[in-house]
């Protein structure tokens, strides 16, 4: 089996602060991390290989610095890593990103299964996985909580839905996106970590994957961010209740009754 895992480097946004003057994200000193959902994608790819043989290749599109997450993937057990990096790729939206990743997957060749994280925590779109499947013309299963079975060129998965889950089966080649429920990622051994640090990671440019330059980067992206603003202002000034716990409770219940809430 040949498995590709798509991983992304994202800013650790839980540390993000807004500059009160400029109303912009303070990016200085913000750490970059492997998108948390992608750790589960890596682990699942490695587990499938351990059971069924073959190889797992991690790919990422991003700046040179994104090589860090590919090294992390190597330390977590993937066999190979490839970075897509070039100024032509910069500014890609999910359409263009999924196009570039799909082209890279075609270039790798003979891939049976692509595994993505559910979503990246910087954009939270969850669009790249299905986008890759659509560009390749492959079947897809999103929000996968469990791989039930793999045999004879097909995969059976448990997909989350709003009111529970379903179990569906599809033939390879296929794309799946995975939830945190799917596994518990391993901790890399020191030996693997050292080896990952030494590994040669090829960097592919648009020409290497035969990407049409009209379809990548800012120019190839159908969407455009035209404005950013701080979140909407607070809607009203709170009515404050202070006093002993009993007084507070009485005042609140009175307010609720007055408004016929209870």
């Amino acid at each position, binding site marked *: 089996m040949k498995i590709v895992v798509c991983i992304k480097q994202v800013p650790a946004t839980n540390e993000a602060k807004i500059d009160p003057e400029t109303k912009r994200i303070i990016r200085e000193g913000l750490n970059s991390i492997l998108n948390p959902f992608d750790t589960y994608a890596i682990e699942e790819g490695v587990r499938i290989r351990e059971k069924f043989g073959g190889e797992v290749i991690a790919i990422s599109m991003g700046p040179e610095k994104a090589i860090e997450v590919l090294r992390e993937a190597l330390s977590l057990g993937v066999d190979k890593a490839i970075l897509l990096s070039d100024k032509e790729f910069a500014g890609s939206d999910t359409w263009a990103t999924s196009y570039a990743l799909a082209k890279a997957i075609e270039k790798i060749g003979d891939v049976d299964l692509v595994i993505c994280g559910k979503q990246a925590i910087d954009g939270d779109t969850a669009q790249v996985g299905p986008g890759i499947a659509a560009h390749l013309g492959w079947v897809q299963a999103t929000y996968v909580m469990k791989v039930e079975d793999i045999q004879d060129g097909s995969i059976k998965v448990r997909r989350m839905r709003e009111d529970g889950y379903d179990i569906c089966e599809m033939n390879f080649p296929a794309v799946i996106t995975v939830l945190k429920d799917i596994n518990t990622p391993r901790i890399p051994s020191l030996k693997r970590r050292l080896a990952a640090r030494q590994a040669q990671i090829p960097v592919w440019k648009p020409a290497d994957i035969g990407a049409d330059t009209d379809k990548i980067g800012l120019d190839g992206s*159908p969407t455009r961010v035209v404005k950013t603003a701080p979140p909407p202002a607070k809607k009203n000034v709170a009515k404050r209740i202070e006093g002993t716990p009993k007084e507070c409770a009485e005042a609140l219940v009175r307010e609720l009754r007055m408004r016929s809430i209870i």
Partner: protein
Amino acid sequence: MILTSVTDRSKYSNVWVVAEFLSDKIQPVTYELVGAARKLADKRSSKVWVVAMGSGISQQVGSLFAYGADKVIVVDDSRLSGFIDELEADVLARLIGKYNPEIVLYAATARGRALAPRVAVITNCGLTADCTGLDIDPENGDLLQTRPAFGGNIMATIRSSNHRPQMATVRPRVMRALEPDPDRTGEVIHETVEMSDMLKIKRIIDVFHSDETTVNLGDAEIIISGGRGMKGPEGFELLRKFAAKVGGAVGASRAAVDAGWIPYSHQVGQTGQTVQTKVYIACGISGQIQHLVGMQSCDFIIAIDKNPDTPMMQLADIAIVGDVFEIIPEIMNELSKM
């Protein structure tokens, strides 16, 4: 599809909503999307169309007119039972090519978030995820799509000027449905699945319904929600009692969920559920923006916190300054007196 000229642009009109079905039953988010579509269509002097794809669904579409739809395209076919992403995407892309809508809205549910990006790629269109605001640019008629980015720290406005249709997903309970008007009627168009749609297919083997994966907070009128200030699972036990007393559901901040005090299915906020209840009582929740985006459109917000200066205490309609462990039992006492 890429626009290359002004005449191209005029070929596209009407606002489409892709109806959301679960087990072939229409979901309330569809009416919310129709409400949002109505406002956009009125600004564009165009119509609201709903595309309903499923199995045995024809009887349900009548209600869509009452909520503001003008036309409904029904694709009722047993092969559309369950969620077959590839087939639905092909059918929808073909209909888009046939009727040329200007805007297409999807629910940002498990199904909509799998379907929309697939259609966007096939039709070569932009797609904006999880919009919290939709408006029309009065100058050129473009759709202005506002969504939180960077974990909700920033609101970004996105447009897709050179492509039609413009596509967006919207989470349940972000938009409001219009008051239904039972006298409103409209036209139903029947379309079919065609052999050319059936390219690839997956087999749905089984469907399981469980309450574990989703606690549907949206169905409650009152949510009692707790954060790190509840200190531990025992704190949430107290909230459960409080909720039982007022007939409400229990919600939580991510901090409480991450600490393992309550399952993820209760999480409210950007990475949890969006809620729009009559009353939201935040107990020991500071109200970081990622939490606020999930509950700020509740009608009446009450905050209980030791710290009077948190964002939640600013946002709330009533802010009670004090210790949750002292105040909540007193409130329950007070309610017992009724």
